């Protein structure tokens, strides 16, 4: 039976999550140098458009088709076969599109690792392969009846599927494509911080759809996820802000980065923990991700826009925190704090495999593409900036 309230809710949530993809583009676009501002936004749009098609053609089926050995879904739903207006609570087709916007967003986050230097043709090929070979299996494992589900690992709204995968894939890409010319020496300040903050605001907004919508119903669980989401964002922002203050002048980019760290960490937990548990989860996420960012910079890693530090490490922390704070009264499972250390162990296993698989497979894909067609633009193009070199456009004048 279709519930009209649930359907209404998930439809709007889907639209809100869709908006997150251009929001990531604006967020990233404001962070890079002006000559690559447009390029970052364009990459987000391209990512979303590509995945939209990939998903209806085969992605959805690979993720949610009949399980094959716990590893991947079958091809029973390619071209949306058998995905219709009926469903349990919400139409199957709605579930399909709700999942689609997650996949699109994940690919957009990955662009962090190749910002200001990826060849657009290679990105298109990469995007299709990555979604098919990395995202779809991970989605199957966690939500499509794969081994992780069978093991009992929990991921409410995609901490592992979306954030760990995109964060560690961004890291892998960054290592293979190499640093930007002049990284470390050259100034690479954000060209447009108000745009970063606007993008961040839209992310925060969309995240309600992301997490609360994952309840797939407009019920108490959705509300629980919603409230936890907001609390974690707030404590994440404040924790990062406080840390940055201790070390100097606290920037606004730090505030919004902390909020996103909190949002990432609460993502797997939102429907499993009590809202109040979002206070420690968000605050620790702010600290963990801040430390990861500092570590990355110290190590001279050019994972340029910190998808790894924030989405990757935030995602790991969130998955583990879910194993700690989960309480049966909310999501039916108890975590460490409620006497079930097993869950934490399962979460750790799940995280480890997700990290390893997404990092390894992305390395492989990137290496192959690099060998075949080259991942990176020429030095001249990088110097000129991708806006002009690839799009023939420029963000001003």
């Amino acid at each position, binding site marked *: 039976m279709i519930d009209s309230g649930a359907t209404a809710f998930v439809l709007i949530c889907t639209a809100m999550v869709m908006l997150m993809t251009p929001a990531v583009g604006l967020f990233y676009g404001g962070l890079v140098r002006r000559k690559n501002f447009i390029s970052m936004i364009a990459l987000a749009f391209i990512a979303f458009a590509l995945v939209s098609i990939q998903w209806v053609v085969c992605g959805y089926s690979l993720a949610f088709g009949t399980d094959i050995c716990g590893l991947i879904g079958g091809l029973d739903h390619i071209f949306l076969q058998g995905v219709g207006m009926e469903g349990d609570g919400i139409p199957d087709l709605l579930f399909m599109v709700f999942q689609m916007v997650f996949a699109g967003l994940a690919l957009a986050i990955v662009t962090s690792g190749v910002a200001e230097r990826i060849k657009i043709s290679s990105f298109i090929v990469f995007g299709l392969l990555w979604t098919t070979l990395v995202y779809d299996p991970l989605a199957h494992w966690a939500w499509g009846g794969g081994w992780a589900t069978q093991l009992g690992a929990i991921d409410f709204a995609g901490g592992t599927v979306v954030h760990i995968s995109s964060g560690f894939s961004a890291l892998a890409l960054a290592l293979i494509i190499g640093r930007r010319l*002049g990284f470390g020496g050259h100034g690479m300040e954000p060209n447009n911080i108000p745009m970063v903050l606007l993008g961040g605001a839209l992310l925060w907004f969309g995240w309600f759809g992301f997490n609360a919508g994952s309840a797939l119903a407009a019920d108490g669980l959705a509300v629980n996820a919603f409230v936890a989401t907001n609390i974690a964002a707030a404590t994440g922002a404040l924790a990062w802000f406080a840390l940055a203050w201790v070390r100097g002048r606290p920037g606004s980019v730090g505030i919004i980065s902390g909020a996103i760290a909190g949002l990432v960490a609460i993502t797997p937990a939102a429907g499993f923990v009590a809202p109040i548990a979002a206070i420690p989860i968000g605050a620790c996420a702010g600290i963990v991700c801040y430390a990861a960012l500092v570590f990355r910079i110290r190590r001279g890693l050019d994972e340029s826009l910190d998808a790894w530090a924030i989405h990757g490490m935030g995602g790991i922390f969130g998955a583990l925190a879910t194993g700690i704070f989960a309480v049966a009264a909310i999501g039916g499972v108890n975590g460490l704090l409620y006497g079930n250390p097993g869950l934490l162990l399962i979460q750790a296993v799940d995280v480890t495999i997700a990290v390893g698989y997404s990092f390894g497979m992305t390395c492989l894909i990137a290496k192959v593409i690099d060998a075949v067609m080259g991942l990176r633009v*020429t*030095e*001249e193009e990088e*110097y000129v900036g991708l806006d*002009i070199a690839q799009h023939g456009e420029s963000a001003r004048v």
Partner: protein
Amino acid sequence: MKMVTAIIRPEMFNAVRTALEGEGIYGMTVSEVMGRGAQKGIALQFRGKAVPVDLIPKLKIEMVVKDADVERIIRIVRAHARTGRPGDGRIFVLPIERICRVRTDEEDPPES
């Protein structure tokens, strides 16, 4: 007095600024510009065709300094804004006839 106008890559600005500070040179006016070099700009290849490069963001630094400082500033800018690749920029020196403060009626000496 001279106005030393340096047009450099935006990403080299911090290094240049720090180096200038280290030598006691503080006064400067900076603006965002777009520029193209004399060597026809950079010829990008786009699917086999050479595409004319549009203007590229640069930073313009204007420093009004004593004649005696010009050489030193040129040296510093060169040392810190150079990457060795086309597009590193230019330095122009213009004559300045007078300098006045707005805050006081003071006149900075026209030649020193």
